């Protein structure tokens, strides 16, 4: 889809409104394939029925033009802003916020956002510091990429951080991921994507875990050491027996994605950010001229 417009702020707002709803309605193909494959290999009777129901649900959502899951989540956006993109990030943020509100009111979508202390609703899926936007800046480029990941609370509540010691090593990392996923049981709607962030600092490890869940199923980390850890964790987690919806079975994880940063010599942080099977994501490219192209990835 190509649209040329001169009002860039309006273009970004329209794109955000579209992305949020699109992500909620349409499960990416890589994930659909992973769920179908999981259904085919699951041997437990309830586990298989759960996965069949999930497949049916994705089809019903498509047929009825409905959102897949009632939890419209917190809208989390990641922006890659080119150095020469003609709209300042301040205006991009305002446009993303306006787009989120418009989508919520026009669809209408359930509004989830509340004040953390009073628990009073703060508006159409926006509020103080909401939506959440992460920024990357790209030199020598005049475009903008936006990815929307609406993250539901069932899986976000199953987020875990441990500051392992250097002596805990990679074994400590693996143990913590295993304990986290087993402890979470059926609560985060397994089988999902297990996002793991290692290194950096406490906050950055969790950010990396969040970044990891937004990767398509089937992708590997470019660093062979990290990719090896992904493969090993995937195998181990699927031996735990938690199974679909925690009812027991062979498939606990559809994928394990690990992202890493280098860290301090005395740090060994590990963060787990669980993503439910309804791992929703959608992206858009915006050119300096206001041309937009919707895409699943950056």
């Amino acid at each position: 889809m190509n649209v040329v417009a001169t009002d860039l702020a309006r273009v970004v707002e329209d794109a955000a409104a579209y992305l949020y709803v699109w992500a909620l309605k349409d499960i990416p193909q890589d994930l659909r394939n992973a769920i179908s494959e999981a259904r085919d290999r699951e041997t437990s009777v309830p586990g298989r029925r759960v996965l069949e129901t999930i497949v049916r649900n994705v089809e019903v959502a498509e047929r009825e033009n409905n959102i897949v899951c009632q939890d419209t989540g917190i809208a989390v956006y990641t922006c890659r802003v080119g150095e020469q993109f003609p709209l300042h990030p301040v205006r991009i943020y305002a446009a993303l916020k306006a787009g989120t509100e418009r989508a919520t009111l026009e669809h209408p979508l359930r509004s989830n956002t509340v004040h953390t202390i009073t628990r009073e609703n703060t508006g159409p899926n926006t509020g103080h510091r909401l939506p959440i936007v992460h920024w990357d800046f790209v030199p020598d480029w005049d475009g903008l990429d936006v990815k929307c990941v609406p993250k539901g609370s069932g899986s976000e509540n199953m987020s875990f951080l441990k500051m392992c010691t250097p002596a805990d090593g990679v074994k400590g990392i693996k143990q913590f991921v295993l304990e986290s996923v087993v402890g979470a049981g059926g609560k985060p709607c397994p089988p999902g994507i297990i996002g793991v962030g290692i290194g950096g600092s406490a906050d950055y490890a969790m950010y990396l875990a969040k970044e990891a869940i937004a990767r398509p199923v089937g992708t590997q980390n470019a660093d062979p050491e990290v990719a090896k850890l992904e493969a090993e964790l995937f195998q181990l987690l699927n031996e735990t027996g938690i199974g679909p919806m925690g009812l027991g079975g062979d498939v606990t994880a559809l994928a394990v994605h690990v992202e890493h940063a280098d860290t301090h010599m005395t740090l060994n942080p590990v963060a787990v950010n669980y993503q439910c099977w309804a791992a929703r994501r959608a992206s858009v490219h915006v050119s300096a001229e206001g041309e937009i192209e919707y895409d699943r990835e950056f």
Partner: protein
Amino acid sequence: MAEHRLTFPTTEEEIRKLRAGDLVTIDGHIIGIRDRSHIRIFDHGHEPPLDFQGAFLLHTAPNVRKLGPGKYEPLCVGTTTSARMVRFTEPLGERYGVRAICGKGGLPDEAIEPMRRHGMVYFAIVGGAAALETTQIEEIEEVAWEDLMPECLWKFRVRDFGPLWVGIDSHGNSLFHDVQEQAQKKLEELIARL
């Protein structure tokens, strides 16, 4: 594993027939409830304006469209994680005669004893399968406490609601307890192998 079809509200006798692991489909009336509506009842001491006797409670906060005063159309109705609301199991059974609690992800072991004592069950639904669940809702008949939107009390009329599994029965059995116990054993093995 048996299969059942039940109409709600129901009786203790019907609930006692269900065993952990059974597959169940529901017709009749169910009541949507969530964190804030529980808190209003039990922490703030307000009597619920809907009748909970023999009821099926669904952990939900739906997407709806307002049609008129007190009238809503269901757009997308799904189910939230139950574990957050486990502490209300005992008073729901004892004080109000609730017969079934339905949600996703299971209830912790502290729900087992109240369910045994009061003749209640926990039904596990497929979390996230909300588009499908919505097609099983015929109508939102009543809404109470609209100021808690979307965490109001909702009275839904449903048909072919499911599939649901008896996660915890009224005889002291819990699928979630069993899966967790086995997984913890397996976890020890896996950690020893690292």
